[in-house]
């Protein structure tokens, strides 16, 4: 082999090596889906798919008849998520608008790292504070004996979703061309009117994408809801009732279940449903963000 050919061979080998690492992301994502599917399928030898999704009673260890309905968990997850978004959307958008439009740059330089610290607090610590800090307060305000309920979970999930919503909303507000702002002011609008009627509508797709990414985080969050919502199996009757989300149910039961039983496989089936839900939400958010970026360019 000549020296040149040797060099070429070496270069393409190196390139191939990096290529394999690049493709790894696809392998991991497909691998997660494939292995979850592979571990879920045996569950449906015994469970009817209709029962799985439409029944609200989950009692795999019942001595009489094991029941595998995840409807109340899905409703619980959606409830906690909806509650979280009801808090996080107005507050998050408010902070983002403040940072992009009102704050002096010095204040922005201080507030942004602080919000990064909030994002860095481990979820188990947030859940712990849900028990010790928010639980008693909620119990007092609403006059209930136990503060571990859907409201508590919603507040904590809102806190977890806020950094995502704030940073992506702020980015999209900042991406609105300055000429929009100037044009609006030149027409006699106040800064507030400009913000509400020009900038937010112009950045809307990015803002909505930030809400969806926050929603994805809230659906998939485990430790906070596991610790702070009480985990009752019953179908939730309102925001003051204790709920058990899909994530919490997996976390509670996977540790105790004997391997390779229907119950074990059913937990992976819940995981698969969870994966598909978050995948869909994130994918839609991604498409919205992408479209918006292309339009900007």
């Amino acid at each position, binding site marked *: 082999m000549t020296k040149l050919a040797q060099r070429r061979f*070496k270069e393409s080998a190196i390139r191939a*090596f*990096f290529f394999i*690492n*690049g*493709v*790894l*992301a*696809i392998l*991991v*994502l497909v*691998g*997660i889906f494939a*292995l*979850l599917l592979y*571990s879920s399928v045996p569950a449906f030898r015994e469970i009817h798919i209709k029962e799985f999704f439409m029944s609200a009673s989950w009692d795999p260890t019942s001595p009489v008849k094991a029941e595998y309905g995840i409807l109340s968990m899905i409703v619980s997850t959606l409830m906690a998520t909806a509650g979280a978004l009801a808090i996080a959307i*107005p*507050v998050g958008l408010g*902070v983002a608008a*403040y940072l992009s439009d*009102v*704050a002096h740059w010095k204040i922005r330089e201080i507030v942004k790292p*602080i*919000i990064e610290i*909030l994002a*860095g*607090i*481990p*979820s*188990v*610590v947030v*859940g*712990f*504070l849900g*028990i010790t*800090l928010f639980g008693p307060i909620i119990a007092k305000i609403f006059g209930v004996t136990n503060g571990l309920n859907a409201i508590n979970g919603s507040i904590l999930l809102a806190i977890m979703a806020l950094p995502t919503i704030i940073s992506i909303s702020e980015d999209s507000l900042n991406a609105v061309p300055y000429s929009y702002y100037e044009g609006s002011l030149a027409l006699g609008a106040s*800064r*507030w*009117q400009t*913000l*509400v009627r020009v900038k937010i509508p112009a950045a809307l797709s990015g803002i909505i994408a930030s809400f969806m*990414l926050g929603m994805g985080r809230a*659906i*998939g*969050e*485990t*430790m906070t809801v*596991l*610790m702070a919502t009480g985990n009752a199996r019953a179908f939730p009757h309102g925001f003051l009732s204790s709920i058990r989300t899909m*994530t919490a149910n997996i*976390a509670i039961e*996977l*540790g105790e279940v004997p391997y390779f039983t229907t119950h074990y496989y059913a937990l*992976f089936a819940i995981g698969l449903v*969870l*994966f598909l839900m*978050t*995948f869909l939400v*994130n994918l839609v958010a*991604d498409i919205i963000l992408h479209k918006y970026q292309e339009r900007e360019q």
Partner: protein
Amino acid sequence: MKKKVIQFAGFFALRVCVYLVLAVLLLFLYDIGSKGGGAISWEFLTKAPHRGMTEGGIFPAIMGTFLVTIVTAALAIPLGMFAAIYLNEYAKQTNLTRIIRLCIRNLSGVPSIVYGLFGVILFVNILKFGTSILSAGLTLGLLTLPWTITASEEALKTVPNSYREGALALGATKWQSIRTNVLPYAFPGMLTGTILGLARAAGETAPIMFTGAAFYLPFLPKSLKDQFMALPYHLYIMATQHHDILKVRPLAYGTALVLICFVLGMNMIAVVIRYRLRKKRRG
């Protein structure tokens, strides 16, 4: 006049949102700092728990989190950097590249407990690593991967193109130009992003619950195949699973404080590296 009143009220409302978020964070840090500070002592940091975890310290949990973070780093740092080098230096704008990027973005949105389930199937069962430091660390490594790839790519993007072109013009091959001109410039930035990712992984609980973290171990792990205690899982146990939760509350607060210091400490290291880097670039 009315316009001004509305604007004043509107901006005031935005400011309230900011104060609210800052108040929540301060409340968090104050609560944990004040109640956890009392629990911290030399014994708490260097001794194992004893008497049914109602006394003693959290040394095994600190060591466990430290060890598992090393395994996480061993997987996530090289793979993340290699993938980022491919995406930024080699990949062209093809459909495959777009799909890779889409997968990376989607991976960062996969719930942590789903990574836990994946770890149970792949590492614990299929590869037969059992519930161990190795399984838990690899699971966390995969979870960290999308963040390390993204952060490393950001760092590579800051390298001026003239660096690459200069090397190529002198007859260097592509790899030589990357190795001698691109990587030395980008490396500190890549490291910063990677450490931030590792800090987040160190605080995760759901992925390690079923892949290796143990309720209580009387000894330190001796090999990668052993189970381990970890700070986040220990806090979960002390907060919800212990037989006498109220009695061990101060210990739980202490654990929370140490965990936060561990995670925020890693963040600080990353920030310091970034700061030094910026200073060097300017000067």
